[in-house]
């Protein structure tokens, strides 16, 4: 009977193809939405793991989170290095990790931080060692793959947070790769990690004191240090570089400043008390990744909901189209069906045959839709770096796809069964007489 279903489908190939494509488009849209939002959320969660609060300069809290947790936006500004110790002294703070941003190498951000940062995101070394000296760097897996940099490789950072052809280069201060991280599936794969004073050095700022492990005094005696290179002199030219936007300039580090501090709590009381305290009592701003991201997703979610509704509509349209196609086909085939009954097909067999026709249509549409959805995501990730950086991956499968596939198959089945039962209710003898 499956063979018969296939024969009927082949007999009206154009109609069959159109219905399959229609359903596939609906399925694909839903799959794309599902993968997109699920992978985005997953990525957001993974990058923010263990980070309970971020402290940075006043500004948009979302921007602070995006720039310091996800490394996608520009920072809100800088905060004094002393903030780190101030936070570490607070009750309930388990960890406070400073980040100093400002430069990039071929679009990969150079982040001055402490080894606690890769540890927080669960990154371990693939080879080499953790940076110890100034200007030593450890690179993420994607950086290693993207630049082909090996151990001992020297490179020079470009100014700004994203690569640009004509951006100024810090020619005098080469970094050296001393270690490479294993892939983590987090943002750290795309980062170049180094000591904070390396970032300062690139910007012509001397560290307050030379410490081995990145602990710093907070008397700001580095102010007014001499600047070693002409094309990049913040103190003398506070207005910034040519070709820089004002916003980019705001990200420039001044002496003994960091861009943001990532904080992990070990007491729920701190989680309740500290963010509000910082926002009210200091010049600093605190932001909670979970809050900002859920706010962002809620915002994006409204748009996604509209697209989702459209995709559902598309699937229902496909269902109706299959329904109409089968209804007309079965009407033409009433004589065939009566004859099938006469030559020995049971009622169940007839229903099974029609149902399998709807199911085959639905299954083909579903399979095509799933392939199309994954293909579009994979293609988008391959062609748009930002999407890839957001963690889009066309080859990972989401359990929700089973639900979409189930819904599509159910639509095909229902669309087939209604006309099938209609036909079965008719009197075989009469149908045969009429079809004559």
């Amino acid at each position: 009977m499956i063979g018969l279903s296939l024969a009927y489908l082949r007999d009206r190939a154009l109609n069959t193809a159109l219905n399959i494509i229609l359903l596939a488009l609906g399925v694909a849209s839903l799959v794309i939405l599902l993968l997109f939002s699920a992978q985005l959320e997953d990525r957001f969660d993974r990058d923010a793991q263990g980070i309970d609060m971020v402290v940075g300069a006043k500004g948009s809290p979302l921007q602070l989170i995006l720039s310091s947790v996800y490394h996608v936006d520009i920072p809100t500004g800088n905060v004094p290095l002393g903030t780190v110790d101030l936070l570490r002294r607070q009750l309930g703070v388990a960890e406070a990790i400073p980040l100093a941003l400002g430069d990039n190498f071929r679009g990969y951000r150079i982040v001055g931080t402490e080894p606690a940062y890769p540890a927080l995101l669960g990154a371990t070394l693939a080879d080499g060692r953790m940076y110890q000296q100034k200007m030593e760097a450890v690179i993420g897996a994607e950086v290693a793959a993207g630049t082909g940099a090996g151990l001992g490789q020297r490179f020079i950072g470009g100014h700004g947070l994203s690569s640009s052809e004509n951006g100024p280069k810090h020619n005098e201060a080469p970094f050296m790769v001393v270690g490479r991280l294993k892939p983590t599936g987090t943002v750290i794969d795309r980062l170049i990690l180094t000591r904070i004073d390396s970032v300062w050095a690139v910007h012509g700022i001397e560290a307050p004191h030379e410490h081995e492990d990145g602990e710093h005094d907070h008397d700001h005696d580095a102010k007014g240090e001499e600047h070693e290179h002409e094309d990049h002199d913040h103190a003398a030219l506070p207005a910034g570089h040519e070709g820089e936007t004002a916003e980019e300039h705001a990200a420039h580090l001044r002496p003994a400043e960091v861009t943001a501090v990532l904080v992990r709590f070990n007491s729920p009381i701190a989680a309740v008390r500290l963010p509000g305290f910082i926002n009210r009592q200091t010049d600093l701003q605190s932001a909670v990744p979970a809050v900002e991201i859920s706010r962002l997703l809620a915002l994006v979610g409204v748009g996604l909901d509209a697209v989702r509704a459209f995709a559902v509509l598309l699937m229902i349209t496909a269902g109706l189209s299959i329904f109409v196609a089968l209804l007309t086909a079965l009407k033409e085939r009433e004589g065939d069906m009566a004859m099938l009954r006469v030559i020995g097909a049971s009622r169940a067999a007839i229903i099974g045959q029609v149902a399998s026709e709807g199911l085959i249509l639905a299954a083909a549409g579903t399979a095509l839709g799933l392939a199309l959805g994954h293909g579009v995501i994979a293609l988008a990730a391959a062609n748009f770096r930002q999407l890839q950086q957001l963690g889009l991956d066309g080859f990972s499968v989401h359990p929700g796809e089973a639900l979409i596939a189930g819904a599509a198959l159910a639509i095909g089945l229902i669309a087939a069964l209604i006309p099938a039962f209609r036909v079965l209710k008719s009197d075989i003898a009469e149908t045969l007489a009429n079809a004559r």
Partner: protein
Amino acid sequence: MPIPESGAFSEPSQGPLVEARGLSHERDGRRVMHIGDWHLAAGAHALLLGPSGSGKTTFINIVTGLLTPSHGSIRIAGQEMSALPPAGRDALRRQTIGLVFQTLRLIPALSVTANLALAQKLALGRVDTAEIERLIGRVGLAHRAQARPRQLSQGEGQRAAIARALVTRPRLVVADEPTSALDDRNAAAMIDLMFEAADTTGATLLVATHDGRIAPRFANRLDLVAPAAGVAS
């Protein structure tokens, strides 16, 4: 003429293949068919002859279990068709009767061979490729075996339909007006074919027609008369 084994329903059938007792049918209080007592012995090919509206199709629908007679009973291969539940009628029909319709009754989406294979699968639960090939050759369609029904000529289509009715090796082959649309020569050829094909599979023919041309070919005749009056036999 030996009666071959036919599926699971090979009850010893010493009795007639078709046996009508006091059979008549009323529709809306009007008698549309009256047979009374009649029987068809295995091998005694019978012609059901009567003018249009005399109840030939009605009788065939009763024989095949598609219609329940208002009066009397009908037994097929010893089983009372009219007393069986729908599933039982389906089974009895499937295992005992092959039908040839007046018009082309093949699945248009399937080739001739596939139509025969489907009929076998439905009736017997298995496909006997050798038997299909033999029958297609027997009705002279070997060169058209893979053609679609709509690509066949009228005569080729009817031969294919006969092959389809016989491929399940039914004991009874019922044909409703198989020749009414054909010219003399083709009508004669059709009847020849049905006799020959039925003899090779051991089937018994019951052919309903108002076509007087083929009447002389049958020794066993059941005449129906148009309603209003009339008892036949």
